[in-house]
Each structure stands twice: as C-alpha cells, then as structure tokens.
C-alpha cells in the first residue's frame, strides 16, 4: 500500500483528461446510488422526524431479491430471457419486494409507537432493532458469504467493457446505473408534483398537523412514503450488485450510513437535497480515491462534509427551522 502522497504530487497519468473523466463517471455512478438511498431517509424524516436506520437493510434485501431473480432466470452466463428484460425484472422485483418490506416495517415497528405517542427516541431504538434483525436473518437464511452477481458474464461481458467517446470512458453498467437513477428521479418528481398523494406527502412533510386539517389521512401518506422510499432503496440494492458485482448481509450498513450523511448534507427532508447530497458524496469519494488514497477516502469525505455543515448547518437545500410567530 502506498504511503500518503502529498497534495500536488501526482503521477503523470493522474493529470490526463481521461483519468479525470473516469473519476467523474465513477463518482456520478456511486453518487446516483447514494442519492437514491438518501431519498428514503429524507422523505421519511421529513414527515415523521424519524431516522429510519433499517433503510440500509431494506437496500440489502433489495440486492438479494435482485440476485435471486438473476439466479432463477439462469444467472449471468446463461440467462433464459433477453438481458434487457432480465435487468428490468431484477429491478422490478427488488423495488416491489423492498417497497412492501418498508411498509411492513412501518406497520409493525414504527406505527404502534406513533399511536402510543412514544418519545422520539423509542422508534430510533426499534429502527436499530429492525436493522440488526434483518442483518441476522439474512446471514442465517442467505449465508454470510458473498453472493456473486457476476455482471462480467452478462451479454458476453459487453456490459462492463467501456465505451470510448473522445477521452470519456463509460461502461454500459455505469450507464444503466446513471440513467435508471435519472429515470426514477423523474418519475418521483412527477409523483410528488402531479398526483394528490404526492403533493399530500410534501404538505405533510412541511406541516403534519396542517395537512391533517385538510382531511389528509396521514397514515396513508406515511405508508405511501415508506413504499416509495423503500422501492428506491431496492433499486439501489440491485444497482449496487450489478456495479460492484456482489452482495452480502452487511452490504446495507456502510451504504446506509453514507446515504444518511448525504441526506443530512443535502438538507434532510428535501427531495432535490437528497439527490444533490448523494451525488456530492459520490464525487468526493471518487476523486478522493482517484487523486489521493483509497485508505483515506472516508476521512477526506467526512472532513469536507463537516466543513459543509459548519457553513450550512441545515444542509445545502435545507431551510432553517421556521420561527414560531
């Protein structure tokens, strides 16, 4: 392992355009994934002021669902359906499965506490409980070994071989991650601006009591929010498997923490904020790895994030808590 290089002292290959663009694409890919995850934290927090620490495990289950669909349809080397359909089915099943899981978690772990008007610390503990519980169940039922998505085999390897556009190098897999995220974001945006339930979600996120005064059934909005946020986490799980090639019971822990950070940095409760926070962290990580050291990546990323929060305590898109008149 390299010792820490001094800033300004780079290898000559690090100073080329194409190397820079590589880091940019890698950062956007990773950032898309974090952003999708961050949305779930942010939307739930916006409405319930609850940190749903089980969100990382919903992501993990999503990645397993994607894996099992992949295996059931013949695996990467010999799929029984066309590759495009295979990938769509993996995403679809993971999103539905994770969405339902999120709703079940809300129903049994959070709602009873809300109904009992428990203090805010209580659902935090039950969130941690659900999180550990799902990790253990996954270890017991799926095994602790890495499950290989083996994306290199898909389409005879063409999905992971890079395309060259000038000095830009991008693989199909990266395109799938970035474009799927862009598509899901667009759908989400339509949902929260064009449908009544989506608008109700934004209204409840701003002022829960005022929303209920409009006749909005807050429990229904909460269920909808958990479903949508968890489905996005499920999609993230499949992307993670396809892009990083495997999954394991603790895969959601690290990603979950980083996505949670992304939500806070973007401004927790804000939908664009979650996405921007995710992409920011993805880019910071990629450039930290590319130009400094992978061993120090998290040190660098988190130092920068602390500085961001010192300057903007409520996050990039966050609004300071309104003063009561």
């Amino acid at each position, binding site marked *: 392992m390299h010792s820490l290089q001094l800033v300004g002292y780079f290898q000559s290959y690090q100073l080329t355009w194409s190397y820079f663009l590589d880091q940019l694409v890698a950062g956007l890919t990773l950032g898309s994934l974090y952003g999708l995850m961050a949305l779930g934290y942010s939307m739930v927090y916006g409405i319930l002021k609850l940190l749903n620490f089980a969100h990382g495990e919903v992501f993990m289950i999503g990645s397993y669902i994607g894996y099992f669909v992949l295996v059931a349809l013949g695996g990467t080397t010999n799929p029984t359906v066309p590759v495009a359909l295979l990938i769509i089915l993996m995403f679809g099943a993971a999103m539905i499965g994770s969405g339902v899981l999120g709703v079940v978690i809300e129903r049994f772990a959070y709602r009873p506490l809300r109904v009992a008007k428990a203090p805010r610390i209580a659902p935090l503990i039950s969130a941690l409980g659900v999180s550990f519980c799902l990790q253990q169940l996954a270890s017991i039922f799926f095994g602790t070994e890495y499950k290989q998505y083996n994306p290199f085999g898909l389409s005879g390897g063409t999905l992971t071989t890079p395309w060259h556009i000038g000095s830009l190098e991008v693989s199909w897999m990266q395109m799938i991650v970035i474009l799927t995220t862009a598509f899901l974001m667009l759908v989400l945006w339509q949902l929260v601006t064009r449908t*009544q339930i989506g*608008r*109700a979600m*934004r*209204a409840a996120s*701003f*002022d829960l*009591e*005022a*929303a*209920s*005064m*409009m*006749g*909005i*059934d807050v429990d229904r909005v909460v269920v909808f929010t958990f479903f949508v946020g968890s489905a996005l986490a499920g999609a993230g799980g499949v992307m993670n498997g396809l892009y990083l090639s495997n999954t394991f019971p603790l895969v959601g822990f690290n990603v979950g923490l980083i996505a949670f950070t992304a939500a806070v940095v973007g401004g927790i409760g804000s939908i664009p904020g979650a996405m921007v926070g995710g992409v920011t962290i993805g880019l910071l990580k990629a450039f930290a790895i590319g130009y400094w050291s992978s061993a120090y990546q998290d040190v660098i990323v988190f130092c920068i994030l602390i500085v961001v929060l010192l300057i903007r305590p409520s996050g990039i898109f966050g*609004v300071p808590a*309104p003063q009561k*008149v």
Partner: protein
Amino acid sequence: MSANGAPLLELDAVDTFYGPIHILQGLSLVVRAGELVCLLGGNASGKSTTLKTVLGIVRPRSGAVRFDGEDVTGRPTSYRIAKGMAIVPENRRLFGPMTVLENLQMGAYLTGGGTKEDYDRVYTLFPLLHERRHQLAGTLSGGEQQMVAMARALMSRPKLMLMDEPSMGLAPILVERSFEIIQQVHEAGVAVLVVEQNANVSLSIADRGYVLSTGRLVLEGKAADLLQDENLRKAYLGR
C-alpha cells in the same frame, strides 16, 4: 342570512384534557346551519382547544361532538372534513414551499383536487390568487396568505367553516377585509364559527356569540346583545 334552526355542530358537555390539565370543562355549544357564531375569549381560555376538539385533533375525555346529525366524537379528522368541516387555522399554516395552486389542491384533497367550479368560485372571491397561483405560498404577504388560507378552506365546499383567530397578525385594514369575506362566505349559506380575541369586530358580523374563560362558558347570547353587555368586559378583565 340568519339561522334556519337545525343544529349543524353541537358540543355536548365536553371535557378535554392535555395530560393532567383540565382544559375544557363541561363545554356545550351549538352552531346551526347557515349561522355565523363567534367564540370569544382571552389567552389560554380554551378557544383553540375547542376547535381542536371539534376537528378531532384532540379527543374529549367525556361528552360528545355531533356534526350534521351524526355523533363524530370517535371519528378522525379526515372523516369530519369529508362530512363538511373546513378550517382556516391560527397563523394560517399554509404549505410554504408549495404553490398557491397546490395549496388549494390540498384544500380539496378529499374531493380529488377540486373541480373547475371550485376554482372559479375562489378566484372570483380572491382574483389576486388567480394571478399568484404559481407563486410559492411562503413568499406571499400576510394579507395574501390569509386569502390563500380562506380559499383553501373553501375548496372542500364546507358546510361549516372554522376560523381560528383570523385577525391575528394582520393590519387593521386587512382584518376588516377578512371579516368582509367571512360575511360573504356566510351569506353564501355556509355556517361559520369564528374564534377570536377581538370581540368588537367579530360580534359586529355574528348572529350569536359565546364567551369562554378558563375552559368554561361564562356568557352566551345574540351578538347584538353581547355587544351591549357590561359582563362581556368583565369576562375579559377577569380572565
């Protein structure tokens, strides 16, 4: 203009608690269909709690809330809104980061976002809101926000409009304008329950009034009589 007799909203010996604190003590009041009633009282007299009890945001420990011929005491807020209540909350409570139009759509949440007639009606009443419909509600002035709050409540075609401190935080000219609109709404056949500290302005448009002090009714009667009443001043001084 005045009441046609049938009770629309009835509170029957309602006792409401916040934790151990007894807020409303055996409160009974009636708003008849098409009537404009005001509920007066100073700070901490239980006015806001009365509205929360009417809406089902807090539940009474004993007593009943009846609306439009049905006991709704155990029913959630959404049920009561669907049955024809609407509220203009204290401090308006608009959805600040959403547009004026989206705020109105939330007002019509239970009727699927409102029909063209609903929008025509509120835009006729508040032409300015049509101009501002794509502006974020949080960026409007206090008077404009008051219009949005009233328009939002009217979007659900209510039988009973609840108004929590409509004069609070508004300049005198806007208070006058607000009460003109309340009167227009009333004249269109909607029953209104106005909760206010400002006794003179609300009694001047109301049919009847109730005066609340530390959770109990201390006075009730025709608005015209209450305006003349010596005890009304005493009720305020004695809070």
